[in-house]
């Protein structure tokens, strides 16, 4: 069994949408990161990492969450609906509760859809951490509001790895 894997999704050129990428960048250089944990900046296509996810003890996916009601930087966690352990070996097609899993992109699958499809091939518990953002605009950096929350977000991700 391989050690845990953290995948930070997002595009760093799209402002706050790249928060998952920024989390992965910071986390990979964080001395508090438990030994052996692998961290990757995952771009925007989770399916691309199917091979890397195989045989893992667990996988944590960090992505931006368009959440008009949430404070920017709030972290929301979803476990697979079937729960961890043996049950996830069986494909489950129910939606992750509270998240939109529409096929709403003509070009690639959402993280939610990818997680659902990956159950066919990757028999690993996947935890999804959604970080509330307000905007996704072309911009090199995070908004000051979200950047200020980054240390707290890192703390929250590290708790998952304890």
């Amino acid at each position, binding site marked *: 069994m391989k050690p845990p894997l953290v995948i930070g*999704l*997002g*595009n*760093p*050129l*799209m402002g706050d*949408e790249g928060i998952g990428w920024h989390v992965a960048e910071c986390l990979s250089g964080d001395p508090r990161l438990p030994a052996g944990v692998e961290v*990757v*900046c*995952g*771009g*925007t*296509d989770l*399916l*691309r*990492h*199917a*091979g*890397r996810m195989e045989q893992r003890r667990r996988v944590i996916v960090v*992505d*931006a*969450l*368009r*959440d*008009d*009601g949430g404070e920017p930087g709030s972290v929301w966690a979803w476990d697979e609906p079937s729960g961890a352990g043996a049950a996830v070996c069986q*494909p489950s*097609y129910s939606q992750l509760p*509270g*998240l*939109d*899993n*529409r*096929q*709403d*992109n*003509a*070009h*690639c*699958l*959402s*993280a*939610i*859809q990818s997680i*659902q*499809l990956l159950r*066919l*091939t990757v028999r690993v518990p996947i935890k*999804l951490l*959604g970080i509330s*953002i307000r905007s*996704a605009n*072309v911009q*090199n950096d995070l908004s000051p509001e979200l950047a200020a929350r980054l240390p707290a977000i890192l703390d929250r991700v590290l708790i998952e790895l304890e």
Partner: protein
Amino acid sequence: MSKIVIDHLARVEGHGGITVEIEGDTVANVHFDVFEGSRLLEPLVCGKRYDEVAPVLSRICSICSVAHTLTSLKATENAFAVRVSPQTELLRELLFRGESIESHALHLFLLAVPDYLNYPSAIALSADKPAVVLLGLRLKKLGNLIQETIGGRAIHPVNAVPGGFGKAPAIEQLIELRSALMQGVADSDAAMDVMTSLPPAEFCHCDTVFAALRTPSLDSYYAGDEVMAVSDGSRAIVHANDYKSLTNECAVPHSHAKHSTFREKPFMVGSLARLTVNPRRLTGKLAVAKKRLKLQLPADNPMDNNKAQALELINDVERALAIIEQLLRAGVKDEPPVPVQPRAATGTAITEAPRGLLIHSYTYDAEGRITAADVITPTALNAASMEMHFRKTVEQSAERDDATLSRKLQMVARAYDPCISCSVHVLRRR
């Protein structure tokens, strides 16, 4: 006046989607709005050094990060008159094939096939036909493996640099890729079985202009500097340095993407265009497969782009295998990148990304810093052609109800495999 609005093709609210306004039996207006970040990203590279440009612009697209990286490098090398080694050219072509395998597998099996079989998504399809979805996932994984091995990581290749590669792949890695590609041959054959079993999709027929890279070897996504436009038997050649005479971009009020027309006609880029411009690629196994798919070239049905992608999938796997055999025979040298001598100059590159012609053009100052950048993506080039085919689809449809028209329009949109907003990828609450 009635209106059909499909607003969830794109993920960014307020952008993307199709609007068709119908007055009686006449289509009054068709609008396809593209949210393409690339134009907005161009200012981000101004002032950057030549070796900082490709890593930034590769992020325009997560699926086509190889195409953006290699086109960027080619434009920079053209500006500084750098000639890369034959080994670098082969490795870059191999990277392109990996990306094409991944992209076509994703598009055909996880996006297009569910449409044909009337499933709302690949997840729903996987409940009834898991073998089809697993086949797509296997081929996608194969494409990813090639990109990771040659490019140095799963996404946004870091190993491809100006003048060559940071590190050549080890012989053992190429042997591993060869084994995976041999399984890929069987999978691409199985993919053809799936594609030939799909119901026909005859939604619209009309004369179409096709444009694609004309390559010296007749079969390259990377090499070559000329575009051929084919229309109704006539052919025209445009050199990369003169790309603006091909694109003739003009802003339209309803879309972030400028529209392109050649000789005042929209044109289509992508797999179907590539096979139309380079038909001599279709020999042997590909000729047989073309016959099985009942694909006639030049085609007049945009849905045939799906058939063309299936043919390219077979070809990409075979071509990748041939490149690896060639590299193994010749022996892979650990050669350093060709040194770059910056100068004040402009360089333009045209390549074939999975969904069609991709253009990068940069102007550098004497220190090798960008003073102007122009990136034109396939989806932007296709935007006017898509609107033309949307209009024809509605005009030629015997069924007039919104649900049927909406389904046909979405399938035509999907056949183009558009990259509407893939540079953005947020989760969203219900």
